[in-house]
């Protein structure tokens, strides 16, 4: 029997306030194999860790049990302590007295039962600890290449950072240009610097970077493999323009006879069937929208092909597939706008042309937008004198929208208010708000400046917008006065909230990232691992993880890049040793385990068996790929011969735990 040490943690008052820790430690001392048992306020702290190191030395401990919090929180911490003490880090077992006992049984009437349960939990841990075996992580090679999905500011920043570190980057963007939502914006709060001026140089840097391979108008279709060794299939959608021949002269898109509502300008402008999304697009070469192209709808035209000086137009182009190997994936798929037209009848379901969204306003006020920067009513083209902003459209609306706050709307609305007051002399601006959230550096100051400039903020939600002649009547309430307010407005701008980008669910399924209740990608830990996911080697950047403004997006993108560099700049990767192992002597080769494995980690292999006194013979057995296996244990249950064991959770160990609890 190995020599076991037990350390009971108070976790301050988290455990100590409910359970009698000294009594638990005293009782644990009598469990088989326990040679040392003690308690301490915070075992995870520096002096707490020293306590373990010293006890290992002094009492020649061979196994360590810590009765404290969840292994999810501190298992790794204590494994490191064992490593420092000279023990195999897997000679460690945890009893969860916090989440499994004190937090769920705080009621004083059940104190005694809670205490008994805590002792049982420690008894279980000790029983398992006695049967622990040393485990050693394996090594796998790493592909030094990173896939970035999404070419908005998050994808651009993260790609540049990874590429600057000397690693190869593949940046995949589904639109014909990179730039995402940021490049559509006019100015950015609170500094009012021009969004295009700060993002287009970065777009160009991406296109010119020797370490970045750019795939625009492309989509990742399939991802397999595991951390350090992913395989991805990229679909390059047919552009019907051979970009290797095209020199971006612009003859084709200026002469296309078709006009289509321009989605880059959110329908405020028009484009041809062959087009570039905007003049500073990267790459600055067109694609053909075959759905609207006259040659495909009516069978004749071909104007672009006739006019193209380099013969780059190729109507017969097909989608192509590129298979790549990468070591890490950064997901930066961004956000879309809440579909308010489907929900808010009181704002007109999108029937009123002068009710627009904040992003439409950005395009309108943008010098390179459809109106050349002139703020005008979409219905008449006239300059609006009274503009009403409605905040929290879709956000903070449990009933019909989203429960969460979209974070950046308050500030972009303040910026819009500033731009109206600046550009239209004598204009009136009213902002209906619930709370104004100015969370960033310089944001509150900007909000105050906008109010000083004359924006009238009215606390209350708007309940109705209706057309009265050429005016829009906005009916709301000033909850600070307790009076109804009615405003005859020329234009209404809705601060529509952010939702995950269209197709986010497909990306989540393809890569295996959990989504939260609102469809944003779930980070591994909300505070301490905000850029990682639970899938090894997959990281998050930007608004695909949750609404955030540009500075936060860029920070997270750089954070994800740092994580990827930390992963890929190593020669080899340590694998998690808590994986399944097949005892080939027992395996019958039935492969019942193969279909139950969610990670496709089990493959059949043929082995040559040499038994004494018999000629060698070949037979099929199951084998686990340790790089793919995540240690879920499904295969061990499926194995009829009992040939598969999950290391760290072997059948022998589990039965010992059950015995300790039940016998």
């Amino acid at each position: 029997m190995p020599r076991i040490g037990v350390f009971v943690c108070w976790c301050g008052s988290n455990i100590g306030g409910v359970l009698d820790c000294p009594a638990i430690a005293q009782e644990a001392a009598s469990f088989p194999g326990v040679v040392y048992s003690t308690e301490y306020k915070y075992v995870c702290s520096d002096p707490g860790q020293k306590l373990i190191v010293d006890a290992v030395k002094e009492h020649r401990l061979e196994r360590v049990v810590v009765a404290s919090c969840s292994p999810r929180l501190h298992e790794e911490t204590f494994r490191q302590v064992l490593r420092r003490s000279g023990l195999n880090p897997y000679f460690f077992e945890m009893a969860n007295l916090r989440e499994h006992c004190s937090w769920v049984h705080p009621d004083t009437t059940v104190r005694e039962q809670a205490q008994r349960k805590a002792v049982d939990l420690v008894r279980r841990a000790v029983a398992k600890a006695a049967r622990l075996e040393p485990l050693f992580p394996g090594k796998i090679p790493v592909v030094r290449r990173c896939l970035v999905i999404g070419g908005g500011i998050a994808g651009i920043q993260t790609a540049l950072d990874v590429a600057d570190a000397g690693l190869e980057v593949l940046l995949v963007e589904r639109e014909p240009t990179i730039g995402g939502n940021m490049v559509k914006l006019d100015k950015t709060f609170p500094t009012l610097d021009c969004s295009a001026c700060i993002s287009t140089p970065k777009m160009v840097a991406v296109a010119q970077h020797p370490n970045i391979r750019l795939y625009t108008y492309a989509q990742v279709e399939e991802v397999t493999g595991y951390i350090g060794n992913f395989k991805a299939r990229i679909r390059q959608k047919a552009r019907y323009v051979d970009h290797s021949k095209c020199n971006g002269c612009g003859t084709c898109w200026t002469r296309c006879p078709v006009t289509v509502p321009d989605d880059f300008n959110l329908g405020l402008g028009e484009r041809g069937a062959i087009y570039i999304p905007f003049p500073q697009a990267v790459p600055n070469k067109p694609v053909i929208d075959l759905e609207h192209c006259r040659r495909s709808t009516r069978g004749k035209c071909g104007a672009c092909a006739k006019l193209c000086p380099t013969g780059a137009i190729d109507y017969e182009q097909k989608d192509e597939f590129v298979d790549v190997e990468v070591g890490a994936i950064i997901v930066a798929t961004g956000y879309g706008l809440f579909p308010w037209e489907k929900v808010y009848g009181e704002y007109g379901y999108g029937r009123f042309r002068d009710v627009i969204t904040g992003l439409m306003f950005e395009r309108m006020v943008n010098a390179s937008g459809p109106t050349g920067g002139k703020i005008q009513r979409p219905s008449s083209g006239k300059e609006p004198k009274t503009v009403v902003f409605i905040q929290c459209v879709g956000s903070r609306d449990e009933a019909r929208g989203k429960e969460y706050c979209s974070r950046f709307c308050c500030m972009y609305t303040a910026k819009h208010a500033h731009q109206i007051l600046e550009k239209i002399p004598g204009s009136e601006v009213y902002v209906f708000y619930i709370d104004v959230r100015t969370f960033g550096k310089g944001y509150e100051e900007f909000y105050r400046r906008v109010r000083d400039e004359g924006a009238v903020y009215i606390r209350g939600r708007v309940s109705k917008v209706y057309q009265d002649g050429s005016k829009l009547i906005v009916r709301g309430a000033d909850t600070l006065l307790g009076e109804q307010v009615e405003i005859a407005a020329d234009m209404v701008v809705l601060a529509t909230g952010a939702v995950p980008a269209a197709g986010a669910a497909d990306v989540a399924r393809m890569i295996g990232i959990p989504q939260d209740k609102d469809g944003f990608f779930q980070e591994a830990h909300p505070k301490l691992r905000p850029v990682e996911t639970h899938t090894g080697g997959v990281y998050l950047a930007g608004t695909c993880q949750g609404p955030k403004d540009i500075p936060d997006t860029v920070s997270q993108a750089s954070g994800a890049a740092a994580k990827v560099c930390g992963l890929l700049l190593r020669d080899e990767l340590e694998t998690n040793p808590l994986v399944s192992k097949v005892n080939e002597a027992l395996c019958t080769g039935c492969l019942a385990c193969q279909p139950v494995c969610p990670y496709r980690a089990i493959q059949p292999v043929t082995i040559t068996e040499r038994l004494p006194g018999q000629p060698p013979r070949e037979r099929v057995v199951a084998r686990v790929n340790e790089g793919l296996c995540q240690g879920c244990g499904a295969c061990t249950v499926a194995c009829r011969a009992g040939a598969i064991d999950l290391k760290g959770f072997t059948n022998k160990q589990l039965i010992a735990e059950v015995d300790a609890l039940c016998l």
Partner: protein
Amino acid sequence: MILLGGKNATEKDSVGAVVRASGHATLLHCYQCGKCTAGCPLAFGMDYNPNQIIRLLQLGRMKQVLGSRAIWICAGCWTCTTRCPCSIDIARVMDSLRVIARREGQTAQGRDVASFNDLFLQSVRRYGRVFELSVVLGLNVRRRRLFHDADLGRFMLARGKLRFTAEKIKGVKEVRRLFSRQGAPVRTRKERVKE
């Protein structure tokens, strides 16, 4: 219902006058935290709380503000001003509002407030201090309610708080000079009749 926008133009100009007269560049930065109301010893008697007065000014509702009782109930104790996190001098705003309301003859309780102010200052100008009986009687005459609050007079007399003869202070001349320097804001009865 507060109507804004288009034809329902706000009374920006008249609000601007109050804002300037009270020494502010703008009142729009008031974020309606309500600290002025929270500390106001007289808010219980006001029709609009101090923060609501500022709010109405933000919305350009000058008439509503001038017609309110709140500006006359304000005692000018300056609690609001000293505590305002936005550095708004609310007491001075109230002061400016009273001046404008008085000038424009828009006072909440009809002529009463104006009459009382007239009689009070008239008394000070004449005697250097208030001659209570003349103020009270003058007010009652103007209100055509001669014996209003007459029973209170009994108690005041008993405590020696009410005299039948006016008492002048020594420096009446100086006080009058103060009044004339101030541009004679108080008119005598004759002057008023002339008008």
